[in-house]
């Protein structure tokens, strides 16, 4: 602070007046757009190689590494065998559980079954053993489970998911697609018979079709 009262104020005002006439720094946004740095991380974007095919091999490394779990992806796995999927689960915890399983490798206690009604998992395991824990035989496994329990208990589905390695989402989707698979114990035998009759490939159904169309259906 100077000895002359008000000199600092005058200096400041001189500065602002000088700046009044200086060139401005504003970027006029819609007309002029700022450069985006080459390592900009604001947008997720798949890269293409020189032949125009997507470089992404669906290895899920990015999805695993993403701390906020915003990456959701699906595709054919690296050997071209299965359709694989990451994300969009029914519950948030479901996804984390699987990701943690894959990543850490340590034994993961899975008390999830406790949240559902306690069932005897022996029949499911038997069905799974019968089908060699192969997720490709999912429909057969599910039908076997339904035959064992009369319906599909959620705990059994979780068990199937856990043992076969298939996504719970996939199993659930499979189970909901086929109308003869049900999630509740059949209360009405007529409805059950009706549901069973609608199964594609069912004998009665095929008979009915054969009589209707007049020839054997493949």
């Amino acid at each position, binding site marked *: 602070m100077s000895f002359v009262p008000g000199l600092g104020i005058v200096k400041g005002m001189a500065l602002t007046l000088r700046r009044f006439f200086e060139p401005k720094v504003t970027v006029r946004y819609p007309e002029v757009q700022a450069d985006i740095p080459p390592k900009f991380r604001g947008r997720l974007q798949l890269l293409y190689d020189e032949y125009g095919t997507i470089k992404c091999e669906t290895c899920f490394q990015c999805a695993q590494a993403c701390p906020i779990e915003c990456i959701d992806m699906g595709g054919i796995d690296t050997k071209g065998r299965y359709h694989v999927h990451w994300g969009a689960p029914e519950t*948030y915890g479901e996804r984390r559980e699987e990701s943690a399983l894959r990543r850490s490798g340590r034994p993961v206690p899975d008390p999830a079954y406790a949240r559902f009604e306690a069932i005897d998992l022996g029949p499911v395991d038997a069905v799974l053993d019968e089908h060699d824990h192969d997720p490709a035989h999912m429909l057969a496994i599910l039908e076997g489970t339904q035959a064992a329990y009369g319906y599909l208990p959620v705990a059994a589905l979780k068990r199937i998911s856990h043992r076969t390695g298939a996504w719970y989402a996939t199993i659930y989707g499979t189970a909901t697609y086929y109308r003869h698979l049900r999630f509740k114990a059949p209360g009405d035998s007529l409805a059950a018979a009706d549901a069973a009759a609608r199964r594609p490939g069912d004998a009665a159904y095929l008979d009915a079709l054969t009589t209707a169309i007049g020839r054997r259906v493949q």
Partner: protein
Amino acid sequence: MDKALARRLEARFGSTLTGPVRQRHDETEIRIAASEIPEVLRALHDEPEFGFELLADLAGVDTGEVMQVVYHLWSVTSPDWLRVIADGLPREAPRAPSVTFLWKGAEWLEREAYDMFGITFEGNRDLRRIFMPPDYTSFPLRKDFYLADDAARSPGAGVRHMERTHEPTNTPGAERTRRVRT
């Protein structure tokens, strides 16, 4: 590593230490019982041979079996950070003496440790929750407080109910429902 500091510490606090003095990188670590906190820290703070005048950090730790209060100190007499671990606080009712008589600024650090671990610091004049809402009853940084998505340690789907694992008896207002004051 400051070997001289380790020797001085052993000479001064020989029997008070509950474990050997450990040194790694630029840190020296001693372990004491929680009841010894005032004496040891006062000695470290006041005695010119130590002169640890700056409290760099105060942290609560839940090891799963016991609770700890960890102090990090800095002094001109040593190139090391000094870590004082007050060990062996029972998880059911962890209590430790406050160090606000040495560092008044430890008040909020202790409030934070209380908020997150439920460690009661005796002698802190204003020990109440600092981050969590006042009617909150559990202590989030304890190891038995599971996150909803903590897959490695908890059931797969949400575990919101775990928030009420701890119902400390001394939390005022826990029995009251919160209502808007008009």
